């Protein structure tokens, strides 16, 4: 409500509107320059138009696929896979990370295993998972979970260890039992780190999901869309798919996690936005 009022009044004052328009133009002009160069190269047919389509063709394909529901269906399947795997990784990773941070014994046992698995790029596991779990969704979801789990575990563990000893002690001396200590001190204290871990985890998963979709031969999905389009030299479809991938990646990063951070750690004054 307040926001709406603020933006309405901002729109009313011409000076603010001018500043906003200038900011918009400043952001837009590099894209205009690059788009103009692209158009020029495409129209002069420096490369075969099948391989280097003009932008209006890509936009037309984008609109056609969106209206016919094909593109949304692909995107929905991909997102479903991403969130299923990510949810699994978040639950297991946060639990394991907290256990490692709280108990020296668990830390000693789990840390070597995690450190061995972490330096191997997730996509290298893909063929192995396909052999073990078969082609299809199970492998894709498990891989997403596996890849994003590492940064979630590491960050949660660091976060729990970084909770100030003095907070823990003062809560204890004020009579907090273990459960209260955990809910009111350790979890909020570690949350900035946990959120960073979740953000890194989902970014990593997103980065390899396209390839996983190709390798796992799932019937729908953005990865499948762009690799399938290559077979028919549909460069316009590929570029439209890549644009959607970029937009979703940006939305996850900027919208979802920004909001989550604003509602928790920034509101509590633990981090400045």
């Amino acid at each position, binding site marked *: 409500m307040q926001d709406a009022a603020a933006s309405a009044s901002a729109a009313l004052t011409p000076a603010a509107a001018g500043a906003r328009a200038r900011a918009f133009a*400043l*952001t*837009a*002009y*590099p*894209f205009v*320059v*690059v788009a103009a160069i692209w158009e020029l190269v495409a129209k002069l047919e420096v*490369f075969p138009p099948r*391989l*280097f389509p003009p932008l209006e063709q890509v936009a037309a394909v984008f609109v056609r696929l969106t209206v016919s529901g094909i593109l949304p269906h692909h995107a929905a399947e991909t997102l479903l896979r991403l969130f299923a795997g990510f949810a699994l990784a978040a639950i297991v990773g946060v639990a394991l990370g907290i256990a490692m941070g709280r108990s*020296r*014994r668990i*830390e*000693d*046992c*789990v*840390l*070597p*295993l995690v450190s*061995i*698995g972490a*330096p*191997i*790029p*997730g*996509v*290298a*596991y*893909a*063929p*192995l998972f396909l*052999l*073990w779990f078969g082609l299809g969704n199970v492998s894709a979801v498990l891989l997403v979970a596996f890849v994003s789990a590492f940064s979630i575990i590491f960050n949660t563990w660091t976060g729990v260890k970084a909770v100030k000893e003095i907070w823990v002690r003062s809560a204890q001396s004020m009579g907090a039992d273990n459960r209260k200590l955990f809910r009111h001190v350790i979890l909020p204290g570690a949350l900035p780190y946990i959120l960073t871990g979740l953000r890194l985890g989902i970014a*990593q998963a*997103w*980065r*390899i*999901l*396209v*390839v996983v979709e*190709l*390798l796992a031969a799932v019937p729908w999905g953005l*990865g499948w869309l*762009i*690799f399938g*389009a*290559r077979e028919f*030299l549909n*460069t316009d479809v*590929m*570029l439209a*798919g*890549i644009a959607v*991938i*970029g*937009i979703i*990646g*940006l939305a996850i*990063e900027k919208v979802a996690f920004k909001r989550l951070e604003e509602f928790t750690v920034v509101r509590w004054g633990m981090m400045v936005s």
Partner: protein
Amino acid sequence: MKRERTQSIIRGGATLLVVAALYEATARSGAFPPALLPTLPTVLATLWGLIADGSMLTHAGYTLYRMLAGFALAVAVGLPLGILMGRYRAIENFILPLASALMPIPSLAWVPVFILWFGLGNTVSILIVFYAAMFPMLLNAWSGVRSVNQLWLRAAGAMGADENALFWKVIIPGTFPFIITGLRQAFLRSWIAVVGAEMIAASDWGLGWMIFDAKEFLNTDVMLASLTVIGLLGFVFERVVFGSLERSTVLRWGMVQATKS
């Protein structure tokens, strides 16, 4: 303190042994086909065999070549561009929106487009690595230059440093912690990108291609062997190369504290 440390090492070693024993027991129990779950001695023998006949070295050499070529290209472009962005407003205004729009696109999504444009082979892998490594390098160099302490700049200026001296003696060393972080992140990204790109775009050599090819023939032992090599190489680069770079520059200059490990 020291006893606690030895206890940690013993516990860690014991866990690894237990996990290895469990794996071995599962593999030998015959519950799963041995082609899918080879025993550890088989994997080690395969690894040794591949190293002995030199094919592992060739695979690793191709992967390293592609990775380092793309990485070097990314550093050569990203580092100067990032520094220029930090120094000149006009360049920042032009590059930053483009970089923020391209960054969220995973580099591997470009593989099919690049294959169409450049054909199968080394070029695609190198360019994919370049794309992956470019943005961490660029953005870290940019924020490094912007975060150089204003006081240092003014102090150097007051002591009569000209533009040239200011750049080489203050800005570059001041940016170094960020540059090293950028190199590290760029390396991690390019390591993922090279393996992924090789699976799809390489034609005969490379660790990623090797894993992918072994899948076709159900050679799980080969896959596990090359996974080991990929992990080892990644670990060596991360710890040895970047670790020593960090120790010989920013740690020695006292700009960042060594993290306890």
